[in-house]
């Protein structure tokens, strides 16, 4: 895999977020537009307020003369709050859509990576990527991105109006305007520090805590719970002390923003006051009125508000970038790094659909770019209703061969056919040590590989594997619920259910990986007996096991040694 620098990674993550944002261009534009119109409504409301006050106090107009303009405040306020809600809703909705899309892409990618390439990842870790990390993108798209635009556009609009009213007051704000990029940098710097120290440390701390809880049984057995409890407390306390030092600095950046916002109000108030009194003989101060003065005062806090909002949301950006980093890693994980050297044989035309063999291997090999040839060449054929036992020590390639048969990987060279088709094109039943039962009804579980199977066929299959009496105990028959991992079945019953699936598929091909690994002697005998029965029913069996007891079942045996094999019949 190509090594990329930190800089390139950061750019890659940003690019990915931008590409996603581009997919919702219109909604983003709408969100920004709603924000801008909201600002305009705000400006109108403030102008009207200042005008009303000025008319009342300076011109001495009667209140009932001003009733009509005053009534105009109501629709303006209504519009403003309506737009505020709509902006939030539009933003959140586009975030929701993007999250769904990213999740869909992740699922597709996981499917394409397949079980072999994902064998090094923990399902829990992947599912937290799928849930939490995708969730971390929400606020970035829903609020931060629109706010990025509003953070300069709103102050600009206000600035234009203030300049029109009084250019010195405008200058006050403008002087701080070149500071805005500085603010941004300050905010960014502060938030970045806050994130790097605060969030990373907090995460590590959560990790430490989670780990101690996970290992609680062990800690108890070794009498170390009290020590661990103290450790949890000390770690948090140390973290607090360390972090507080950083926070004191990090919060300074927002304090600076707060300071400028406060000072701007104070400066504007004093400038306008002195100007109105005529103490300022220079510049436009002489032409200040209560209207323009009051309006400038009302606008001063609004000038800084978008930036303060942005500052509050800055850590959402950092969280999104952090999530993007690992999401892009997964989405762009190459499919060929673990993939053996490919040959063209697997892509050949499907000329011989009517292969007489259930399974046909001709000179099949598997090799990896780094490790060289790990399997084969293997040639063998297996007839319908026969059983093949693959034996060999750990690391001899038993699992790799099964993966080839199931089509999870393609052979590097040679020809591999399952009922005349390339591997992976026929439905087959795959069983590892632990039988795969999912949360759903008995019927749904049975129909896994045979969506068309009808009730009679399912009952018949259950009869064959000796589960019919168990089904009779279920209240809802085939509609009764099975829990994930078959938690309401015993290990043997779960295995039987998986075997019943094979009877329902047209090809009746079963691939079993170490099926007896967690069974005792008696249960293993029962399994062998059951498999004999299935064979008699026309099922073809491929069993990888180091357990010699399966020999009685096997029509053929393939002994694998690292880098070679020895087939016998």
């Amino acid at each position, binding site marked *: 895999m190509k090594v990329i620098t930190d800089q390139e990674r950061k750019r890659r993550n940003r690019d990915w977020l931008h590409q996603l944002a581009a997919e919702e261009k219109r909604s983003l534009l709408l969100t920004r537009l709603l924000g801008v119109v909201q600002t305009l409504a705000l400006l109108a409301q403030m102008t009207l307020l200042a005008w009303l006050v000025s008319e009342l*106090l300076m011109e001495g107009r009667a209140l009932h003369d001003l009733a009509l303009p005053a009534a105009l405040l*109501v629709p303006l306020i*209504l519009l*403003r709050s309506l737009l505020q*809600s*709509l902006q939030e*809703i539009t933003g*959140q*909705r586009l975030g929701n859509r993007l999250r769904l899309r990213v999740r869909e892409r992740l*699922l597709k990618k996981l499917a394409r990576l*397949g*079980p072999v390439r994902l064998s*090094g990842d923990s*399902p829990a870790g*992947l*599912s*937290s990527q*799928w*849930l939490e990390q995708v969730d971390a993108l929400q606020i970035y798209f829903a609020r931060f991105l629109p706010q990025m635009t509003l953070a300069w556009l709103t102050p600009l609009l206000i600035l234009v109006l203030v300049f029109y009213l009084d250019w010195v007051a405008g200058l006050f704000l403008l002087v701080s305007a070149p500071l805005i990029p500085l603010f941004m940098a300050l905010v960014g710097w502060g938030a970045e520090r806050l994130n790097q120290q605060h969030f990373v440390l907090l995460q590590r701390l*959560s990790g*430490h805590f*989670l*780990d101690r809880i996970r*290992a*609680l*049984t*062990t800690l*108890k*057995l070794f*009498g*170390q*719970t009290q020590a661990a*409890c103290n450790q*949890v*407390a000390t770690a*948090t306390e140390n973290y607090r002390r360390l972090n*507080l030092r950083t*926070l004191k600095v990090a*919060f300074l950046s927002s304090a600076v923003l*707060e300071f400028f916002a*406060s000072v701007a109000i*104070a400066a504007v108030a*004093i400038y*306008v*006051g002195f100007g109105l009194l*005529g103490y300022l003989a220079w510049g436009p101060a002489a032409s200040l009125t209560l209207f323009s003065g009051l309006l400038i005062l009302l606008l001063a806090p609004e000038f800084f508000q978008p930036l303060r909002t942005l500052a509050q949301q800055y850590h959402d950006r950092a969280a999104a970038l952090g999530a993007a980093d690992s999401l892009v890693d997964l989405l762009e994980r190459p499919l060929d790094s673990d993939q053996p050297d490919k040959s063209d044989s697997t892509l050949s035309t499907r000329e011989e659909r009517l292969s007489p063999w259930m399974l046909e291997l001709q000179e099949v090999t598997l090799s990896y770019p780094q490790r060289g040839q790990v399997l084969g060449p293997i040639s063998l054929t297996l007839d319908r209703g026969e059983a093949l036992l693959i034996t060999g020590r750990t*690391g001899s390639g038993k699992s790799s061969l099964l993966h080839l048969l*199931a089509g999870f990987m393609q052979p590097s060279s040679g020809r591999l056919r399952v009922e005349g088709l390339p591997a992976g094109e026929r439905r087959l*039943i*795959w069983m590892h040590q632990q039988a*795969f039962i*999912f949360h759903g009804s008995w019927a749904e579980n049975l129909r*896994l590989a045979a*969506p068309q199977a009808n009730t009679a066929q399912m009952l018949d299959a259950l009869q064959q594997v000796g589960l019919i009496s168990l089904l009779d105990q279920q209240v809802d028959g085939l509609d009764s619920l099975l829990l994930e*991992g078959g938690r309401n079945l*015993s*290990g*043997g019953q779960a295995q039987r259910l998986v075997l019943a699936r094979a009877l329902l*598929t047209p090809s009746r091909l079963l691939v079993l990986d170490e099926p007896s690994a967690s069974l*005792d002697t008696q249960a293993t005998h029962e399994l062998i007996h059951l498999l004999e029965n299935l064979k008699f029913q026309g099922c073809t069996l491929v069993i990888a096991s180091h357990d010699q007891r399966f020999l009685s079942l096997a029509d053929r045996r393939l002994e694998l040694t690292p880098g070679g094999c020895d087939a016998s019949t």
Partner: protein
Amino acid sequence: MHPLKPWLDLLQEYRGRLLLGAVLLLLTLISALSLLGLSGWFITATGMTALAWAAGLAVTLDIYTPGGGIRLFALTRTLGRYLERVYNHDTVLRLLARLRQRLFSGMTRLDPLTLTRWRASQWVNRLITDVETLDNLYLRLLAPPLVAAVTSLLLVLFIALFHLQVALLVGLGLALMLLITTFGMALAGQDLSARLAWQQEQERSQLVEHLQGLGPLLASHALVEHEEQRIQAQKRQLADESRLQQLIAWGQGLQTLILQLLVAASLLLLASAYQQGWLSGPVLVMLPLALMAMQEAFQNLPAAFAHWGGTLAAAKRLNQATQSASQTPQATQPLTPYQQLSLKAVQLAYGQQWVLKDFNLELQRGKKLAVLASSGTGKSTLAALIAGQLQPQAGQIQLQGTEGVLDLKALDSEQWLAQLGYLTQSTELLSASVADNLRLARPEASEETLWKVLETVELAGEVAGFERQLDTWVGETGQQLSGGQARRLALARVLLKDAPLVILDEPFRGLDQATLETLIPRLDAWLEDKTALLLGHNPEQLPKADRQVYLSSL
């Protein structure tokens, strides 16, 4: 009892800090109100004074006091905000430490069955998130509405100095706003936000299942269908989230609406008082402007309270976790020498399912007993019973010695565990160094001792190959050990403890035949003078036993 009660009690410990934090918040908010209000007053006063001067009236205006006030409030607002943030974050971090300690010590009293169930269903992750939710209880749900209420009250009292009717109107308006943004939002979002956390956990376990089944699903061509199910579930979840988001958005809009309408209404009412001549112009501007600054006090309330249901649910889960734990009484009887360990008519059911029924077993001191069974037939339960990690629902576990019979239940569990070496079926390593993991068993062990025990389990060579050797970080966040390596490390830990009674639950799980053949004679020698319970599927995969028992599934 209210689910939040225990957590509020916990907050009591920090009463002083919390109060000071709230005061700082209040100070900041009042400064903001005063700054805007006073500025409005000042501008209007100067404007009107100028007008009077132009009319030839001799009016004086003290410009220094308000000017000074404006500068002061600008300063206190900035400083208040800074201090408030630093101080309150410090408090939250202190709370975090306390909450975690509390949860952890609560969970140490849980029995292993419950613990295992939780681990399997990712419950622990949920609990961590829940603790984090409650960390923020004070900063999100307690201080802000309190500060908003106090500020509102002060503002209303201040307005009342000038105009009673306006004070009444503003008081009612702000009270309504507070009600809507707290109770209203909490009520409207309660079910939704409580449900969301659960849905998320369900989604998690379903996705884990999906990933674990990737092979079988792919082989059976059923993957696309199952993907579709996940996507549909996601759509339902997002629809719920969307409903909550909308609720918050409308809440925020409504709050702006009420506040701005209040500003407009009070301005007009005050204007009429001005025109009747009993209110000054500057005050007419000051009061609405101060009211406008109240926005800051209310703006985060709708979102915080819409998640009230989720917070409540989090508290309930945590209460359940720590309360169910605290029921086990502490036994104190000291351990005396014994000749035989026996289980008499022991019964244990897991829900409706029997695990052990009328189970009898005897283990003489110095003997090795092998118990053989398939996975899921109760052998790990048996081990947990003997280790005192589980209590039988009926029957006794006794230690028979020359000085009489001891019931395991009454025994000081620390003493009992101290002389027990138990290798559990699943391998649990801490996220810590290899050495730390080993020293759990014997904190004072020298490096030499550690290397020796690693050699015994055939792991020394591999650890020596790691860059940082004994300091290599293992566990979820560190160097990924293979299943076999982890198993041998766990075994080494039990060897290091060197306890007189040993329970080995599938000790060679995940090890290949060759390693197994090397390890068995070494363990046989080590077990020579010990009492041992050996659990597994086949006798060939266990150390030598004096006697074998087969456990059949019920």
